[in-house]
């Protein structure tokens, strides 16, 4: 068994892993290693051939591969080691990584610090328990995206998409551009789950009908999908009898949510947040296990890669500090809680002695409201939507004013703010 020792090991060579590795190296970690299961770096961005990446980061509209390449080029200019086609099988709380590849066999990698950057996977039909048969022709949207954009195959010609997440919307446009007919996008919520710009550019521009407050209640077809039945749902997402509509299709794409891939993290004993399905982290993006950090979609699902890069740079820098013995234990630990109309907040714990960028999502859309961070800062928001992540940075001078044990983030109405004033 081959043994390696590194300062910072980054698991995953997608946008999070690339940015984390670069930041760790810049921070002074001498031996930084990226472990990537694919044959190339870049992660899922490599199949996202549409544009729209990097508006914040690079003030340019890049495709996914272009965005990834900018970071890959930077990595290649450094002495950061990269292991491709290498799968991590296990991470221990002592920061030992077991990984395999076909050239070197089993690798035992001892790291001073680890950055988890494994990304996420798509929710499946099974997780939704869509009733009916199990014919061919049902794909998660990302799998279909890979077939079309990487492998050069089109799964079918008449398509229904369940879920209006961003990948579903992007695939509605892609399948249309490939000559397929997208019959419908079906969304259980009363609003689209993806970014507003994607609804406009991917559905409206192609005249693809969006069925809100609806879901697929049955799958038809023995060998290959032949049709789906959709129906309206009530507030409890229960199908309403009499609203059924059968739509002919040979392909059903599912874009019904992303789940951070934390099987390795759990195996190491990292504590997970039941809402984000990602690790609980502090303001240095360190998990419950000292020396193990997390960033990107493995921590919580982002909608913009620009935010992933920014978050990952922090995780990488803190991981390097930890590896070099420069990350001191926090003086104070304050819990961060999700209050009124907040689904989750990352980080889940802060120390008040370093700047914190809070990332959060609301539970439901609202408008003309204020985002309140433990009374320390209140920001007006014209619109808030679950699909659009909110982020705010507070500096130590603001944070030091906090005296409680739990900092609650909440949405407050303009009326309440008025009453306060």
């Amino acid at each position, binding site marked *: *068994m081959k043994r390696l020792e590194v300062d910072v090991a980054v698991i995953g060579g997608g946008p999070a892993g690339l940015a984390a590795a670069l930041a760790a190296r810049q921070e002074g970690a001498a031996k930084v290693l990226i472990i990537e*299961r694919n044959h190339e770096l870049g992660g899922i961005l490599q199949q996202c051939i549409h544009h729209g990446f990097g508006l914040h980061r690079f003030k340019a509209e890049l495709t996914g591969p272009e965005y990834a390449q900018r970071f890959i080029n930077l990595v290649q200019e450094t002495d950061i080691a990269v292991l491709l*086609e290498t*799968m991590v*099988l296990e991470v221990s709380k002592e920061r030992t990584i*077991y990984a*395999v*590849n*076909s*050239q*070197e*066999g*089993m690798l*035992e990698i001892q790291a001073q610090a680890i950055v988890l950057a494994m990304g996420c*996977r*798509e929710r*499946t*039909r*099974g*997780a939704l*328990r869509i*009733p*009916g*048969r*199990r*014919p*061919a*022709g049902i*794909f*998660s949207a*990302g*799998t279909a995206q*890979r*077939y*079309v954009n*990487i*492998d*050069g*195959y*089109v*799964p*079918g*010609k*008449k398509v229904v998409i369940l879920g209006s997440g961003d990948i579903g919307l992007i695939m509605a446009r892609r399948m249309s551009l*490939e*000559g*397929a*007919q997208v019959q419908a996008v079906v969304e259980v919520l009363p609003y689209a789950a993806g970014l507003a710009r994607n609804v406009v550019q991917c559905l409206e521009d192609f005249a693809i009908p969006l069925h809100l407050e609806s879901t697929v*209640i*049955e*799958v038809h077809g*023995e*060998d*290959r999908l032949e049709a789906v039945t959709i129906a309206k749902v009530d507030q409890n997402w229960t199908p309403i009898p009499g609203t059924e509509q059968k739509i002919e299709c*040979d392909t059903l794409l599912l874009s019904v949510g992303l789940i951070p891939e934390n*099987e390795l993290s*759990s195996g190491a004993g990292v504590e997970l947040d039941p809402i984000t399905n990602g690790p609980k982290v502090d303001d240095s993006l360190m998990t419950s296990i000292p020396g193990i950090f997390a960033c990107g979609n493995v921590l919580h699902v982002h909608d913009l890669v620009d935010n992933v890069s920014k978050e990952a740079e922090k995780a990488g820098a803190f991981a390097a500090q930890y590896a070099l013995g420069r990350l001191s234990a926090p003086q104070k630990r304050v819990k961060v809680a999700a209050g009124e109309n907040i689904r989750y907040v990352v980080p889940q714990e802060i120390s008040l002695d370093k700047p914190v960028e809070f990332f959060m999502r609301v539970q439901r859309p609202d408008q003309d409201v204020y985002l309140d961070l433990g009374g320390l800062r209140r920001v007006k928001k014209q619109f808030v939507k679950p699909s659009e992540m909110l982020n705010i940075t507070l500096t130590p001078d603001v944070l030091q004013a906090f005296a409680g044990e739990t900092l609650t983030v909440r949405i407050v109405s303009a009326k309440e703010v008025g009453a306060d004033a």
Partner: protein
Amino acid sequence: MKREAKTEKTVQVAIIGGGIIGTLVARELSRYELDVLLLEKEAEVGWGTTKANSGIVHAGIHEDPGTLKAKYCFPGNQMFPQLCEELAVSFKRSGILVVALSAEEMDMVEMYYQRGLERGVPVRMLSREELLAQEPNLTPEVVGAVFAPQGGSVMPFELAAAAMENAVANGAQLMVESPVLDAWVEGEKKYLETPTHIIAADVVINAAGLFADEIARMFGDAYFSIQPRKGEEYLFDLGMKGLVNSTIFPVPSGKTSKGILVIPTADGNVMIGPTSDNVGSKDDLGTSYDGFERILSETRRLVPQLDPRKIITQFAGLRAASGRGDFIIEFSPNVPGLLHLAGIESPGLTAAPAIAADVPRLLAEQGVALTPKQNFNPRRAGVVRFRELSRAEQDALIRENPAYGRIVCRCETVTEAEIVDAIRRGARTLDGVKFRTRAGAGRCQSGFCQPVIMELLSRELGIPVEQVTKRGPGSEQICYEAKELLGKEVS
């Protein structure tokens, strides 16, 4: 196709149906100097009722006295350790528990205990405290249970595929995608027509499962019928492993079912099910909202922690129930040389090895000469399961064959080498690869690995990716090449 254009083939024994019964019978008969052919209508064996079976190896305490079910169940159970060892199939003697939630239910539990004692089945009564110590995740409402430690679980598809592989290694022949379209008798011979062949056989063994009555009807022998009875099953993420240690049975309320169970599968997942509903059609394989609700509420009475958010997949199967409420294991009273192995519903999987072992005796009674084969090899070459090996063993394997260093299915840690081995042993489809290796059976349900497995099937079978199917002709996954649809009318 005209009958004349079909290839004629003569065998001594033709078995119709490659389910758990047909495949184990084929293996049993391959011990003898007999010309044996198995006809399977699907692309691979084990794809009918077998693949959707719960996989429970019953202990032998549920069956009513005097039935064929009782006759074959416990002896079948006793054959599993050796059979699975020979065929390199995983089998776990995790035990079964019938759990009572009330004093009245305890009376039934006591009855199963007595029945076990009478049949020589190892059984033990457990007090509430003993039960909760053994299964801490059961509801505290439990009163007690009967424990049968020799109950277990097996992967039914894996067993059928392994039995067939071993039968073929010992000289039996297999024809897939070969539904029997017609059957008749001429003189001493029985004839079976498939899409490509006319098969003449001395003995026909009807192991056609759900369609056994239709095969009988083709021979003019329609004296029994098969009623499809649906069972839905829901499978949890591997993360729920260890929630229960044994298969948990409630005290059944109805006559036709043993109730809805919490099952630790041989692969380590937790599964809940099955429902038990008579249906009108033999291809009604859909799952339903209603079935799920019933399964969840029934099983949560016993194991309250079952979390529906951890379910990764669901499926349904149809039991082939005979009108007699018991197995039909007999030569046809009307057609000499036609052996029916029909109505093999639960505990059919458990009974299958014992039924198969009885077939040579039944054939001998009909005057079939049985000469043991000198070179019969009961063993099937073992299957490597990379995920179950130690780190050092994994390292050594990769050095031997670098394809073990390529993890294709990340959720279940399945390597390229294992997938290639499965294809070389007979997997021809995505489902075939999945059932044999678990590649694609995990939490992402093949979202990441399907394109890679498609490529491997294409490469190993020498067919274009567009011809790779989920489970046989008509279930192709990929229909077109990129841009192929452009400029075409889509309707």
